[in-house]
């Protein structure tokens, strides 16, 4: 179990402040969803958490240890990261790509674990097939399997639902919730606010590089935040015990 503490994190890229003074505490057992309009800084914040870029100010600490000074292999054992970039350079079998997520196991055990995860993601029939022969959605699930087989305490996923159909989007979020329930800290960025409302324990609303608010969906998806951050009108209601978000467009600014 691991807690991720962000204190006053700022990142400047190409002269622009992309992430500005973000402070947050991410605890085990919860699923955090980063939302915000394009260019809000979601990807940069996830990379900052994974220590994939240099911070211009602030610190990211994993269980009170600075992630920047942590040995890379130990950091990797704690954190599994799924980038937005979905390229795979070589036509490896799907099971071998998924098995990359557990490098500390023997190749045989890693393949067994990877196969089980591919099976859970509906890919058992293509597990030995090269990834170049898969559809975009299948390939996205193979890459997700690589993270889901990992024994890391923290999952950082940048737009994990890209290329997935609605059924698989929900199924993947259910699996991620299961991982959170096992005691992991799961952080993902999403553009689908309906899914964010339904699945998030806490929503992190980013706007212009700042963390506007981090709270439960009921608070984040208020009329005020929806109109200010997304230029949308809407309200969150509870239907049959489930959070449902109704959204309407506002005139373009």
């Amino acid at each position: 179990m691991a807690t991720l503490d962000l204190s006053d994190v700022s990142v400047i890229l190409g002269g622009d402040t992309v992430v500005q003074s973000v402070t947050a505490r991410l605890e085990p057992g919860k699923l955090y969803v980063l939302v915000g309009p394009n260019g809000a800084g979601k990807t940069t914040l996830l990379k900052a958490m994974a220590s994939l870029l240099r911070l211009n100010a602030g610190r990211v600490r994993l269980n009170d240890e600075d992630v920047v000074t942590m040995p890379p292999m130990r950091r990797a054992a704690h954190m599994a990261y799924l980038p937005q970039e979905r390229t795979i350079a070589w036509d490896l079998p799907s099971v071998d790509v998924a098995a990359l997520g557990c490098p500390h196991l023997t190749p045989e055990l890693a393949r067994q674990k990877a196969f089980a995860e591919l099976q859970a993601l509906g890919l058992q029939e293509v597990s030995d097939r090269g990834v170049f022969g898969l559809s975009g959605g299948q390939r996205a699930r193979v890459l997700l399997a690589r993270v889901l087989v990992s024994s890391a305490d923290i999952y950082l996923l940048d737009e994990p639902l890209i290329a997935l159909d609605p059924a698989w989007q929900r199924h993947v979020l259910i699996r991620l919730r299961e991982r959170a329930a096992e005691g992991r800290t799961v952080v993902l960025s999403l553009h689908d606010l309906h899914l964010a409302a339904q699945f998030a324990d806490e929503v992190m609303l980013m706007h212009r590089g700042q963390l506007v608010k981090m709270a439960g969906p009921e608070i984040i998806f208020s009329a005020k935040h929806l109109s200010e951050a997304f230029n949308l009108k809407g309200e969150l209601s509870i239907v049959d015990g489930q959070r449902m978000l109704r959204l309407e467009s506002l005139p373009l600014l």
Partner: protein
Amino acid sequence: MLVSTSALNIGLAITTAVLVIALMLLGDVPLSLHAWGDALVRPGSVGAEVVWGIRLPRNLTAVGVGAMLGMSGALMQGLLRNPLAEPGLLGVSAGAGLAASIAIVLGLGLIPFVVEGFAMIGATAIAVLLLLFVQRFPQRQALILLGVGLSALCGALMALVFNLSPSPVTTAEILSWSMGSVQNRSWFDVLLTVFGLVVVGALSLHLGRGLRFLTLGEETARSMGIDMTRLTQAIVFGSSLLAGLAVAVAGVIGFVGLASPHLVRALGIKDPYRLIWPSTLAGGLMVLIADGCVRLIPASGELRLGVLTSLIGAPLFAILAYRSARSWMQD
């Protein structure tokens, strides 16, 4: 996977060993059964000189040079995640070639090991430039751009050397050297190839696993604990050492470094880490076969090895490229 990596390694190693022995039967001087008997039991006999002093070092040099190119090609393609990468891409071969031509123009060609030494100095100079650059800019695109630039610059300077060469004989000498050969190579040349393969082979075993994670991009590799600067430096160093040694020992031999990894991939091994050793063995076998053909094909003078590897390698590569393109169309 069509074949397992270990089965392929064993198959390639056995085929190479058999061919090394079979090709020892070939040569300008036909050996009688009696001479063969002498070669095996009487050191210092004519038979022994021909077999152990000329034919075996030549065959082993061919295997060693090909293996270095095959290993270098596999490492470069894995690092740059580009199926078109090859040992010459970063300009190391061109640097070695340029320095060797300067040695020939300066009339140092007849002094033993001077051309080879110059080639290694040229390769080292380019490798040092690349390593300094990588320390500052580890991104692969930047590395490729610098390599292409250095390669073009060395090519232009080599053209200048041709242009200013004092006599047609010198020009012909450079041209002949640059076409590659393993004729009249000694055990020292064999040792040079063994040195390169042992050093870079050990490095690959230690760091090559990083290439597997790099399949999913630099960010994923870094998030999995891979130090990209260190990996890039190690592979640029290793690949440069192999390419430089290959040029120093045998001149310019094209297409082997590009085609060997593709040949192995066509047999179903796509993992850039597992591909390193089969590609090494395939490269050795390719150059050995090419050198055998050089000796078998009747020509007024001996055909040059580098010419033949390109003649065989280019159509083979075109077939593999066609097969790949067809599989991409089906996606």
